[in-house]
């Protein structure tokens, strides 16, 4: 006869809402929002209200599995762990440590990411570790690190309400970051201008003062166009440029060619509209830019973000409340996974692996030499697996079989590995190809911390005991390291892991569990007294002066032609989360949306003879997908949209694996497809 509420953080998106897990008689009965939490403020979205539903699902992996013949069979922990350790050692000894790749999880806690990257680097000896940030905000990290010196959201979610102008681009905020959209609407109530720039007519566009609809893949053009107008009209912030930036002249020369007429030809945006947007953004006292995948998931993703950074610095809209560049991170802990160095070229806190001093500090702390060369990224790992230079992959909490581009290629690659270890809470298409499967714990069964999109470090707490024989991810990594003879991961608990990490990471140095008991903290938090940093770059940028990096527009890697006349853009839907392993097992969410639909503009539908709910076949150069059609004016004519959350209608069977050269992110947002109606065969 027990009733308990355990304070935790929602495991779905990067908003990081505080919620209580309600336990009645030891079972999860529901969730409730936390009234005093700065993000949720007493509210949650439908995913937050259903966050408990998947935890005790029957489908949970309860026992380790290993492949005997063609099938995966249950086994016990010792067998699975010893087998894995032996195989890893064998492969490392015979093919070298760089033949092993690690895919970490943006859903796992900071402690687990740290332990995993320590395992990859100190126990196996390779820098081949990456995670799904590669597929979402890698351009943000790369570009903002170059422009500002720090690749994270500059402001906080609560202070968006204080903006006087909000430019939302490439983000379907109401569906994917509801708490942020709530703040945007609240700012609008207070008189703020809302400018939405998106190729699709998103929900927030109905509330925008200005809705600009450029063509797919033309972001650098319209951003440079805005800067051209701003400089022409003298709306730029000279004082800010002189005091705090470098290379203004190079930028001015570059954007001079992006006159409103040139921009209209490239993007389809009318000069008058662009001018109005530029005016609103530049002349408002506090203007914020919010963006997500629509800006980053292109072959020009890094350039897109650099252009946005240029725009913000040009108008002095950085470093004050309600302003700044705000990349809205997707996963609940993708910011944390990046901070913990689960990336091939950096250690914790973005300290570079090829920086001898930084690496030296870790080598001393961990008592072992560490590899110097940056490793391979996610898509490169898959390619290397296909070509044979990677023999083993250890994947935690990731489902590349649905989230990576060109999944037929992914299937080939994963099937050709000598060892595939998958550690997850549910069986998924990636796990089905595995040699060994470790059952892991969900957010409700372990302690740890998450870092949400506005750099907010928060504690999650254990509510129930691990389901079945599952173990927290950090414990599995610890056991594996012990068997492989390395004592470096013998942690007593998550707190010890966090403290070790904080001692090596200046931006996290002042954070510890007892401080987190009282409230969340936003890094940089350099010592015990530091209250955290809601707004970055107030006095100066992390690198000192911000640098303008001029960028030129390049078209997307694949454009439409006669054979494939429609543009395909992919993205998320509100009711499901990413590859759906958790959300498709939650009855509430599944009831709202149980299958995928391709969004087609009614004009295109008429041309093709397609009606609502007809089955259509959408094909690209990579593959084809059968999916039902939904007619909506949300997509412009000539473009279709498929959400990537559904395995049976996998949008990524069609997408283009072409990558951004700097950040290696695939171009999920633009590729060319053909659509035809599937006529039902007559059964005789």
């Amino acid at each position, binding site marked *: 006869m027990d009733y308990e509420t355990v304070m935790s953080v929602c495991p779905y998106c990067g908003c990081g809402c505080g919620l209580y897990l309600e336990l009645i008689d030891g079972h999860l009965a529901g969730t409730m929002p936390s009234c005093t939490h700065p993000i949720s403020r007493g509210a949650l979205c439908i995913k937050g209200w259903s966050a408990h539903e998947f935890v005790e699902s029957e489908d949970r992996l309860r026992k380790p599995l290993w492949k005997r013949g063609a099938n995966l069979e249950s086994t016990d922990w010792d067998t699975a762990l010893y087998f894995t350790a032996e195989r890893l050692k064998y492969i490392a000894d015979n093919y070298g440590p760089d033949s092993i790749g690690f895919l970490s999880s943006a859903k796992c806690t900071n402690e687990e990411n740290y332990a995993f990257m320590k395992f990859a680097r100190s126990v196996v000896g390779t820098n081949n570790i990456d995670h799904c940030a590669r597929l979402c905000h890698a351009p943000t990290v790369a570009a903002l690190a170059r422009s500002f010196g720090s690749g994270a959201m500059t402001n906080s979610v609560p202070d968006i309400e204080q903006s006087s102008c909000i430019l939302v681009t490439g983000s379907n905020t109401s569906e994917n970051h509801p708490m942020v959209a709530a703040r945007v609407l609240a700012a609008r109530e207070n*008189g703020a201008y809302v400018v939405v720039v998106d190729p699709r*007519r998103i929900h927030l566009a109905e*509330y925008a003062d200005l809705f600009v609809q450029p063509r797919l893949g033309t972001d650098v053009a319209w951003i440079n166009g805005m800067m051209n107008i701003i400089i022409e009209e003298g709306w730029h912030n000279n004082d800010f440029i002189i005091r705090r930036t470098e290379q203004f002249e190079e930028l001015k020369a570059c954007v001079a060619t992006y006159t409103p007429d040139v921009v209209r030809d490239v993007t389809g945006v009318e000069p008058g509209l662009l001018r109005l947007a530029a005016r609103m953004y530049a002349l408002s006292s506090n203007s914020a830019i919010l963006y997500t995948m629509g800006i980053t998931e292109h072959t020009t993703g890094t350039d897109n973000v650099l252009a946005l950074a240029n725009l913000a610095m040009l108008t002095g809209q950085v470093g004050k409340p309600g302003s700044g560049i705000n990349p809205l991170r997707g996963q609940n802990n993708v910011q944390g996974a990046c901070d913990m160095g689960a990336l091939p070229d950096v250690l914790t806190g973005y300290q570079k692996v090829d920086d001898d001093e930084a690496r030296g500090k870790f080598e001393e702390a961990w008592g072992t030499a560490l590899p110097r060369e940056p490793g391979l990224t996610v898509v490169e790992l898959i390619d290397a697996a296909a070509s044979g230079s990677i023999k083993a992959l250890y994947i935690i909490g990731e489902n590349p079989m649905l989230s990576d581009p060109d999944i037929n290629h992914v299937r080939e690659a994963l099937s050709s590995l000598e060892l595939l270890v998958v550690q997850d809470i549910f069986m998924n298409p990636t796990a089905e190809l595995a040699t060994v499967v470790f059952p892991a714990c969900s957010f409700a069964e372990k302690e740890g911390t998450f870092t949400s999109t506005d750099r907010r470090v928060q504690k999650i707490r254990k509510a129930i005991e691990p389901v079945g024989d599952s173990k927290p991810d950090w414990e599995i990594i610890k056991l594996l390291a012990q068997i492989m003879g390395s004592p470096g991961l013998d942690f007593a608990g998550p707190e010890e892991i966090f403290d070790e990490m904080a001692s090596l990471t200046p931006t996290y140095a002042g954070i510890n569990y007892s401080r987190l008991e009282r409230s969340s903290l936003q890094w940089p938090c350099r010592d015990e007294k530091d209250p955290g940093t809601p707004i970055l770059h107030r006095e100066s940028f992390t690198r000192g002066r911000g640098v303008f990096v001029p960028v030129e527009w390049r078209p997307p890697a694949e454009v439409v032609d006669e054979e494939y006349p429609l543009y395909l853009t992919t993205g998320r839907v509100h009711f499901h989360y990413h590859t759906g392993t958790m959300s498709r097992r939650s009855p509430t969410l599944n009831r709202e949306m149980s299958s995928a639909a391709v969004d087609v503009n009614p004009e295109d539908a008429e041309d093709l003879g397609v009606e609502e709910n007809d089955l259509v076949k959408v094909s690209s150069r990579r593959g084809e997908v059968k999916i039902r059609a*939904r007619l*909506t004016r*949300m997509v412009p004519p000539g473009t279709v949209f498929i959400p990537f959350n559904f395995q049976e209608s996998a949008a990524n069977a069609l997408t283009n694996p072409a990558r951004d050269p700097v950040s290696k992110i695939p171009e999920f947002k633009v590729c060319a497809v053909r659509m035809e109606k599937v006529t039902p065969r007559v059964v005789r």
Partner: protein
Amino acid sequence: MTTHIEAEDELVLKRQPFVPSLAVFHCRWCLPETDLVRSFLPPEVAECSTFITLNCTARMEAEFAIKAFSEGFDGVLVLGCEIGECHFRTGNHQAVKRLALLKKMMSLCGVYPARLGFFWISPYDEEAIRENVGSMVHGISSVGPFKYGKTWIRPRPR
């Protein structure tokens, strides 16, 4: 996904001939034949209206009317027995209370009260029925079709 359909200005539509579509719910005890009910409406209105037989008007739930408006009907008409004549004795009491409240609620939300009509009818007095129904149809015709409006942009506080 937004499904708002852009509506033309109400005033413009008033000048065009407009045939309202109604959702008609009628009690089977006072009006057992759908064809009879159909005959009370002008033929062009009956063409695009839907007729639903209820066991008693007490079966009438708010959802029926709300969903009818959401599906695009321009009016909802409920025809039931007079007080004292209900087959279930007091079914029509509850129906009228519900519908009175619903009517007030819908007018709060911007639906013309004329669009929701509830008439107690005696099956022997066809004149009265025709008159009531006719005045309702006339009322709806003059206010125009029921459609989502453009989202309303409030004046900006400056």
